[in-house]
């Protein structure tokens, strides 16, 4: 093995909760956040119990474009969708996540219900490192 491998543990940043992992989330097709009876976004929600007992520091990534590139969150629900930075044309779902002392909540969102298939989502929750 070449190079030097090292780590910093001043803030317990490296200790992952055991529920950290990867999941394939279905395309967002459930209407949500209605205004005047019509949904403003379509979503897929996933709740993952983490059992840590406190809101942990966490991070999350996804593959919004089916090209095998893992990106951090590229947009927010106000914009409604992600655009591929590599071509600025292809779009895909956005992702948002939040935590409480019990669960990690993941949500894919998109501006309509036309997307199909699944989208890989990666999430890391840190042990002994709370918000």
């Amino acid at each position, binding site marked *: *093995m070449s190079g030097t491998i090292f780590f910093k543990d001043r803030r317990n940043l490296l200790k992952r909760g055991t529920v950290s992992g990867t999941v394939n989330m279905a395309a967002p097709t459930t209407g949500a956040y209605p205004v005047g009876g019509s949904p403003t976004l379509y979503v897929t929600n996933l709740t993952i119990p983490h059992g840590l007992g406190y809101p942990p520091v966490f*991070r999350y990534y996804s593959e919004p474009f089916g090209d*095998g*590139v893992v990106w951090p969150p590229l947009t927010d629900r106000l914009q409604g969708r992600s*655009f591929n930075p590599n071509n600025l044309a292809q779009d895909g779902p956005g992702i948002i996540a939040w935590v409480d002392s019990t669960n990690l909540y993941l949500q894919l969102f998109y501006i309509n219900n036309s997307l199909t298939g699944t989208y890989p989502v990666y999430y*890391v929750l840190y042990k002994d490192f709370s918000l």
Partner: protein
Amino acid sequence: MADVTKLQFYSEDVTDKIAVYSTNDDSSGSGIGIKGSMTAVAPASPADIATTIATIPNPYGKRCLMTLSWSLDGVNYFPQNQPAYYYNATFASYFWQALGFGGCSDSTIYFGTDSQFTSNQTVYFIFALDSPT
């Protein structure tokens, strides 16, 4: 070359397995594991936001989780941002007319910059890659 799925050390907890952690001791931008640099392309108009993607090969052959900071002067670094091109608007001054973000596939590491300069600028990145699991 290190395999991010095989890096390990003894711990009672599952930990991040950092495959690459850049350092500040090199400004050549010549390879992985050191401070990279890229040049943001001047936009067609100062009123538009230009997006530039620079790439380097990912020698680890695995999709990794990327964390980065970016800088315009190689001294002051800012955390990763979400791209701004969606907004079709001018940058607020606190962005210093630029922002940085990045991604990673099995074969390629991507460094993105949204900018609103009238001339090319070098953007410096410090980044770490670690295993998804």
